[in-house]
């Protein structure tokens, strides 16, 4: 394709209804870049040792495929290359420039993925002697980190902290009472059941529904 044809195509896109799609696609790319920036450290860890958690990867991949899909829809299949190339470049650079962060530097999203925040799982001493304990500990912790991550994803940092702390505190008791698998199930059920009421509260606050309800109650005479 020569230069004039490219300019003509751009002109066509700018003049037609496609400009809406273009704007949408640009917004999606910006959004995906923002998510990539937020998850930068986690992403680097994923590239460095493949040690990461499900939701992070799912979010990144979803954003990536969404952008590629939109681009393919609006500009045709070739444009996917234009979106995929910078992301691939970024992945390569991140791999090349990987640098372990000190504990002091950890903040924000990185803390959410920290293994220190996870559940302590006690195992028999013999597993430690043959090196099984560390592996199992790490695996068990990661299983619950997904649930914990869901809290941080959907609730505010402070509320998520309270809930995750309370659940972690009660978990050893549940484990002693019902066993590890059922305790894990309890943890997950608590997280999922908590998202409903707390999410609804946040939604009311954000959308102003709560304010409208309050006005309506006051208009009815305080009852």
């Amino acid at each position, binding site marked *: 394709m020569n230069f004039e044809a490219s300019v003509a195509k751009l002109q066509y896109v700018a003049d037609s209804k496609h400009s809406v799609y273009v704007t949408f696609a640009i917004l999606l790319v910006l959004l995906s870049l923002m998510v990539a920036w937020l998850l930068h450290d986690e992403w680097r860890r994923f590239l460095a040792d493949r040690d990461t958690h499900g939701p992070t990867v799912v979010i990144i991949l979803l954003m990536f495929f969404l952008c590629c899909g939109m681009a393919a829809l609006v500009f045709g299949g070739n444009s996917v290359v234009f979106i995929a190339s910078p992301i691939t470049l970024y992945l390569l650079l991140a791999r090349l420039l990987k640098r372990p962060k000190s504990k002091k530097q950890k903040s924000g999203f990185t803390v959410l993925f920290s293994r220190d925040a996870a559940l302590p799982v006690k195992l028999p001493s013999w597993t430690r002697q043959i090196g099984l304990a560390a592996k199992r500990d790490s695996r068990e912790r990661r299983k619950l980190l997904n649930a914990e991550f869901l809290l941080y994803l959907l609730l505010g940092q402070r509320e998520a902290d309270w809930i995750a702390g*309370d659940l*972690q505190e009660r978990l050893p008791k549940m484990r002693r009472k019902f066993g590890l698998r059922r305790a894990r199930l309890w943890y997950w059920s608590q997280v999922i059941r908590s998202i409903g009421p707390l999410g609804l509260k946040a939604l009311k606050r954000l959308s102003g529904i709560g304010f409208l309800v309050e006005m309506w109650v006051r208009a009815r005479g*305080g009852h």
Partner: protein
Amino acid sequence: MSKEDSLGQFEVLILTAVVTLAGNAYGATIQEVIEDLSGGRSYAIGSVYTAIDRLEAKGFVKSSYGGAGPERGQRSKRFVEILAPGKRALDRSVAISGRVRSVLGGEVGS
């Protein structure tokens, strides 16, 4: 008594737990106590916090933060303390329950 001052069953349970636990009332302990009070029924921790928010908005309780420890991954607790209007509302609810019980006599709950 306006609707603002009245308490639902769940709120009564939470205020009772807060009174019982005195200075050690926070999410996990409140959840444990209300599960005991209600005969082993499970409550979501999120519902507990939503009810505490509601009670705080009514001026029945107040919250403070702190008490992070290793057993909870260094995350802070939300301590809850009952205020005078909360105690009055709880007294009223308990009194109503008592009257209902006396009216019903041996019909239920014997």
